[in-house]
Structure formats: C-alpha cells, structure tokens
C-alpha cells in the first residue's frame, strides 16, 4: 500500500522528516507521534501536496511526486480542521467531492446519499454544512473523504471536538470501513485510545524520525519483555525464588510482573514454582498499555 525510501523533508533549517524507510501493507495503521513529529507533513507528502526534499514515496503503486493527481483520485483525506465548502448542503458537498475525484455526476450523487446514510446524516443531508454541529461536521468530513471509493483513507484527528458518545460512534464507523468498503486507513491521532480501538499496526514518529513500525500487539508486548505470572497462593514466595535466579520481579496485586535474565526462558518460572510447591494459574507475556509502550519508544529514541 505504501513504500517510503529514505524520505526526508526540510523546511529551511528545520528537518520535518529525516531518512524515513517504511513499508506498509493494507490494513488499519495508527500514526502516532508528539506535536511536531512530522505527522501532518507526512500526510501532505502522501497526498502529493508537498514534494519531499529527498527520497521516494510510492502510494498505492503511484509515485506521489510524479503522479499526485492520479493518486488523489484514489486516496481519501479527512483533515483535522474544517474543510467544508460554505453554501453547500451535505449532499451537494459530497457529490461535488465525488465529481472532483472523477466520478460521473449520477454516480457521485448516488454515492453521496449512500455515504451520508452510512455516517448517520441521512435525515440532515439537505441542511447547509455551515449549520452543522461539531459532531455532524466530523461526520460529513468522513463522508466526503470516502464518497469516491478510495483505496486508502488518511484520517487526521477524526474525533477532535467530539463528546464521548460521538467519539465512540465515529471510531465505530472508522473501524468498520476496511471490512465494509475495502479501504485501508492511516489514522493519525494524539488520543492513544482512539488508535488502540481501531488500528492493528502502528507507526511512531518523533522529531521527524521513524521510531517504530509494526503490529500494535508486538509493540505492547515487545516493549514489556516480561511475563505476567499468577500463582494460587503466596506470590511473594515465588518472587523471592525468581529474584534469587536473577529475575526482575514486580508485585501487581496477586500477580507478578517477571523479567527474565538474558538467555532464560519461561521454563525458569515453571521450575521455580515447582521448587516452591506453588501452583501457577496464569503465565503470559506481559502486555503494557499503548500509552506506556509509546512512551517507552519515545524514551528509547531520545536515548539513541
């Protein structure tokens, strides 16, 4: 779906993106990074709006710098800011969006009605978009981004300004898009729970550099490097035994967080439990929250 080779973008003396090599396959990808990480610049480059200073960008098989128009016919973009045309109602706006992306007028109108129904605006679709509430504007922004049947959807902070219920509804709409409409999504958000709710893969950018790319489950597991252990009775006894074997152990209620020494595997835990005549009820790789994993990635990046 996406291939970046040695991608760099410089604005004067500021290097917004630095030597990014990235390959993404179809699916639901979360783009994470603190403010100024280069997420917006990356989106603009993926849309072919900004030319990279160095490197290659291939999106859906198109060279973004050489064929930006062909690319934008197949990519949908939901920007963070309002991007509506005043004076139009939602059907006119979505039809116009579809036609600008090359759909014939009748097809564009039919699809406009369909996507407005999908985002829950069917009874309000003939109202001027400027009269919409924040939640309705977010929905119509999503509708105009998918009306032309894009293969890739770029979503920039799609839940901005939404109340908790509206946020859940928006995330549900987004999460089902790949299954229902066959498009891939790249979701940029500073709200980690949003990304956690929707995405399978993660890209972490920080200060213009790529810090992580891969499955979210791997990020949450890989960064922990430890295991969750629950025993039937006396977890402290097992903790003492494991520490004696060089493990790092933390107590989390009835459970233990265990980090094994180099070269050891889970058989060490099982052995020590047998030694202490303790019955193990649960043993699994320790999962951290996405937030913790994200912060650890940033910390490692800073240290490097």
């Amino acid at each position, binding site marked *: 779906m996406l291939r970046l080779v040695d991608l760099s973008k410089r604005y004067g003396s500021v290097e917004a993106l630095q030597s990014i090599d990235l390959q993404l396959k179809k699916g639901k990808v979360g783009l994470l990074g603190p403010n100024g990480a280069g997420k917006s610049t990356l989106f603009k480059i993926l849309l072919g*709006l900004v030319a990279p200073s160095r490197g290659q960008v291939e999106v859906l098989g198109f060279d973004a710098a050489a064929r930006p128009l062909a690319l934008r016919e197949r990519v949908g973009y939901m920007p963070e800011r309002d991007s509506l045309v005043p004076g139009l109602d939602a059907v006119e706006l979505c039809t116009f969006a579809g036609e600008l992306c090359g*759909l014939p007028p009748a097809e564009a109108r039919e699809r406009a*009605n369909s996507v407005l129904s999908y985002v*829950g605006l069917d009874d309000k679709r003939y109202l001027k978009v400027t009269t919409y509430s924040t939640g309705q504007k977010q929905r119509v922004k999503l509708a105009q981004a998918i009306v032309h049947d894009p293969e890739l959807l770029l979503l920039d902070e799609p839940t901005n300004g939404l109340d908790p219920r509206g946020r859940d509804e928006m995330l549900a709409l987004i999460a089902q898009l790949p299954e229902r409409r066959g498009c891939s999504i790249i979701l940029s958000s500073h709200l980690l729970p949003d990304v956690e709710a929707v995405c399978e893969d993660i890209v972490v950018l920080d200060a213009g550099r790529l810090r992580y790319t891969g499955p979210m489950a791997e990020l949450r597991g890989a960064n922990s490097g430890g295991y969750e252990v629950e025993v039937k009775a006396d977890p402290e006894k097992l903790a003492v035994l494991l520490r004696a074997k060089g493990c790092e152990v933390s107590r989390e209620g009835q459970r233990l967080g265990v980090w094994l020494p180099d070269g050891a595997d889970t058989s060490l835990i099982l052995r020590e439990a047998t030694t202490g005549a303790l019955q193990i009820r649960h043993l699994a790789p320790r999962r951290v929250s996405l937030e913790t994993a994200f912060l650890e990635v940033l910390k490692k990046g800073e240290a490097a």
Partner: protein
Amino acid sequence: MTIRDLGYKPYEGDRLASRARQMLLTKRSLALAWAPGLVKATMIVGLLPLLVCAVILYFKVKARMMIMGAGGPATADDATNWIYYGIYWCQLWFAFAMSLLVAAPAVAGDVASGAFQFYFARPITRGHYAAAKLVAAGVLVTLVVAIPGLLLAMLRLGLAKDGAEALGLLPYVLSALLFSVVMGLSLTLPALALSALTRKPGYAQGGWSAIFFMPWVLGEGLAASADMPLLALFSLPTCLRLVGQGLFGIERSYDLHILLPVGVVVAILSLSVWTLWSRLSRVEDLA
C-alpha cells in the same frame, strides 16, 4: 449507534478527465460567487445608471439629427462619448464593489473556511483552482461593466440614420467590449492576488480598497499640484480612464502617450498573476 449501510459496490468505471474537472470547479465557483444576495443586488442596481446614460445618449443623438435635419451646422457626434462615460464613470463603482464582494474574498475565504483544503485534497491543480477563481470573479465583475456598455453601444448603433453610419459606429461596440474586459480583468486580478496573501477575507477587502483609492487620490492630487502628469499613472483607475479615452477616441485627461497607461495596466496585471501563482504554489502554507 446502528450503522445504516445502504450497500457498497466498488467503483470500477472510468474517471472524468482533467478538463471536465476544470469545468466542474469553474461552474461551482461561479455559482457560489453568484449566490450571496448582495452580489445579485450589485448586479441589478448596477444597471440603473444605464438608463440615465441611455436617455442622455438618445436625446443627444436626436438633437443632433434635428439640428442637422433643419440645415444647422454639422456638429461632432459626442453622443458616442456617453458609452465611455457610462462604462467608466458609472460602472467603475459597481465593478469595484463587485470585485470587493467576489474577488477579494475568493482565496482568503476558501482558506478561512477550509474549502481550500477540500479542493487540494482532490485531484485539483493550482492551475485548475486559479482559473476557476479568475473566471468566476472575472465574469461577474466584467458583466457589471459589459452589459451596460454593450447595451449603450447597441443603442447608439440602433439610432444610426442609415447603414453607412451604423457601419461607422461598429468599432464602438468592439471598444465597449474590449474596455469592459480590460476593466473586468484589472479589477479582478489584483483583488484575487491580494486575497491569496492573507487568510482573512476582510483584510483582502480592506487592502484592495486602500490600493484602489489611495493612489488615485494621491496620484491625481500630486499630478495636479506638481504639474507632473506622470504621477497620475500610479493610480489604476486613472490608467483605466486614459485607456478608455484612447479606445473611444476621446481627448485624454493627461497629455501622456497611450502606451504609458497601457504599460502600467499590463504591469499591474502581470504582478497580480505572478503573486497569485507563486502564492498558490505554496499550497502547504495556505492549507
């Protein structure tokens, strides 16, 4: 929330060509520019001075015919001057008002509302966008001038006493058309260029008013007080007046070669095109 999916089928047909997209964008820009009530009111009220000029022109022609018919001296046909007066002195104000309404806020308004981002997230080039905005605003501004100008020229043609005189008056129709187009472009392009320099439509409108009126007052004032006609060329309206006088063969307000005001108008238009184009090339700054 229950998602109401009416069904989905992938689009496998052909996509419209770039030219169709240009037409679509231009038509939509024109419709959006025409939509506000104030724009329609300006266009309608702008036709009223036409009636006054038409009545004067009619009586001037008839009076001249009566005098000549009664064996009086053959006087110069100054009735045709009223085509120029109608276009310049009457319609200039309405055309300027129209440019304030449709050209000055065109790009800045799109940036402020986010429409700019809407367009450029799609397969739209800056050429498509600039052409659509120029045509939409330019057509409306030019029509304010051209409709009365052409109607006055046609009236004068209709009042000709015979075919030979009508043939001799034909160039005035062309002059009216050409002058209207020059005025329309001269009032649209600089306003559009200013619009691309700011994110606030009000700033573009204020700036355009200042650029239009201040050099006019200062230029003409200094030219008169210092007796230096060249100073009058700082003003776009003055240059347009001299161009119009040249086109209609009327004695010019300042004793300057016609190429001088023409050169200033061309320079202003070129600078405007360059400003608009270079600003739109930095789409990422505006979006």
